[in-house]
């Protein structure tokens, strides 16, 4: 199991809102910057059927049972994901960084 599936599962994007999931390059950055530094990451233990469950709480619980520190992974990934202009601008209408808009 690759980390990509994990990220796409929790943060899938929304076509209606024109919000993408993690881009490939960002996933690489996540892996390089954050995930490899996390302890207890043993993704090879997860099988594909695992993610067919849409009860996120249950999935998180099961990941934890497999000794995967999913809270740390998500905590860092969320910060990274919500810094991306492609994600933030459709949601907020604001450019990132905040140079050009947002006059009150």
């Amino acid at each position, binding site marked *: 199991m690759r980390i990509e599936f994990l990220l796409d*599962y*929790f*943060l*899938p994007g*929304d076509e209606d*809102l024109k*919000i993408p999931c993690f881009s490939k390059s960002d996933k690489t950055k996540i892996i390089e910057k954050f995930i490899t530094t996390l302890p207890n990451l043993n993704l090879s233990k997860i099988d594909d059927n695992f993610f067919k469950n*849409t009860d*996120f709480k249950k999935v998180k619980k099961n990941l934890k049972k497999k000794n995967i520190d999913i809270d740390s992974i*998500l*905590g860092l990934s*969320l*910060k*990274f994901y*919500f*810094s*991306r*202009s492609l994600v*933030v601008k459709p*949601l*907020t209408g604001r450019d*990132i*960084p*905040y*140079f*050009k*808009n*947002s*006059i*009150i």
Partner: protein
Amino acid sequence: MKPDIIVIGSGAAGAPAAWLLSEKGFNVLLIEAGEDFESSELPTSSIDWELKSEGQFNYVAAERNNIGDYPVDDSKSPIAVCNFNAVGGSSILYSAHFPRFLRSDLEIFSKEGVGNDWLIKYDELLPFYEMNEKMISLAGKIGDKFYPELNKIYNPEVKLGVAGKILSEGFKKMNWHWWPSYSAINTNMDLEGRLKCHSLGPCNSGCPTGAKATTKNTYISYGLKKKVKLLKKTTVKKILLNNKKVIGVEIVNHKLKIEKIFCNNVILAAGAIGSPRILLNSFLDIQKKNLIFKSDLIGKNLMMHPYGYAEGYFAENIHSENGPQGNMLYSLEFYRQSENVDFKLGFMMHAIRGDGPINTINRLFKSKKIIYGKEIYKQFLKNYGHYIGITIICEDLPNLNNKLVLDFNNPDKFGIPGVKIFYKLSDNTKKMMSYGITKAREVLKMSGAQKTTGFGPIKNTGWHLYGTICMGNDPEKSVVNSLGKVHNLEGLYVVDSSIFASSSCVNPANTIQAVSLYLTNKIIEKLK
């Protein structure tokens, strides 16, 4: 150039001192331990600005290790020391909320029977407030009843925005005092080197456009064109003495080169943590220390502004994230109490704007209420722009047990001891904070907040620091005299918030700068 005078620290106190001295023809050597950050290096210039604010630009001193930083152990304090060592000092990361102290802040013993009165009179400070406000192009609105002497403004006030208008209606319904913020922000038109504010939001992560006045883009910028020479990335190890006279400073730069610079006049302006640290490190020899100091007060009476916090959640999007973070409105309704309360003095309510995207999602994550999958975007939108915060800035009182001491087990990269902070909230502060949080929640509810929460003290809020180099006439009960000159020592002056006798309950940057100008003007008269 042999300096006529050395100024240590380029923040709120040191930069105005250096500028004024150079205006009067003195050759000034301005020494700054930190580096000079370009606008492009500030977090707000990057897409991941909220992440960057957690690293090199973290305002919590203990969590950084930049050039110019020194170890600060604040594990014995509920409030972390928050300052910034760089050209421009903490003004690089401050909110630019820029009120004056109030007249009675300087007379709390006479008026309230607690703490100490200042040796400096409010009327003496007024011309220097005016000088400072002109320099930074103060934004605001004339007419607040708490500031009857303030009659010159250089920029219109920062707009309240949707959130500010909603909150101001709440204050009106409560019949409580409120006023739009006084701000060190250029809201009108582009100035020299300072663009008009675009209301980007996160001033506390640095202002990339220069709309926010820092001491770097005002006093230092002008001073460098005159007779100020800036020596950055240079730490002062100690003040050099010959008997009871200052003869210079010993410095070490980031390349570990140690040097002595000789000069008979030195101004300490490294802030209420940095200045006493330099003084204490200069007098490690007890005999030498006892020769000069008749009191044992250096580092003691540390005052901070303990912060309480209340926030309200509004069902509709009130765009609270738009606008300068710490500049919306304030209330001095509870500056002094009109009803029966069990505490002395008072607090300011300071409204602050909502979180950026990362902090919005992080808040949900930490509260364990986050919903993953496609729902996360809807949940984000239900929170982003929906919160207004009110901080309760409590006026503190001097206490000998609240202090900093040298930490010999924790030296900086040059082997100079760091500092250890000992600080406890007083019962007075606890009562004041609890009362303030309750009141803030009331006004948030009155403004239409669907739900409110409150807590305090907030750990990472030790921005406002005072009192650690006591000013007084009696050398046995103080360290410096009314000129800021160290008792019994020729040529050494302190002009920063270390000498403040009280803390007020409002943001201190305007007053630190005005006091520095006032004392420097006195020093100039003496040196002439």
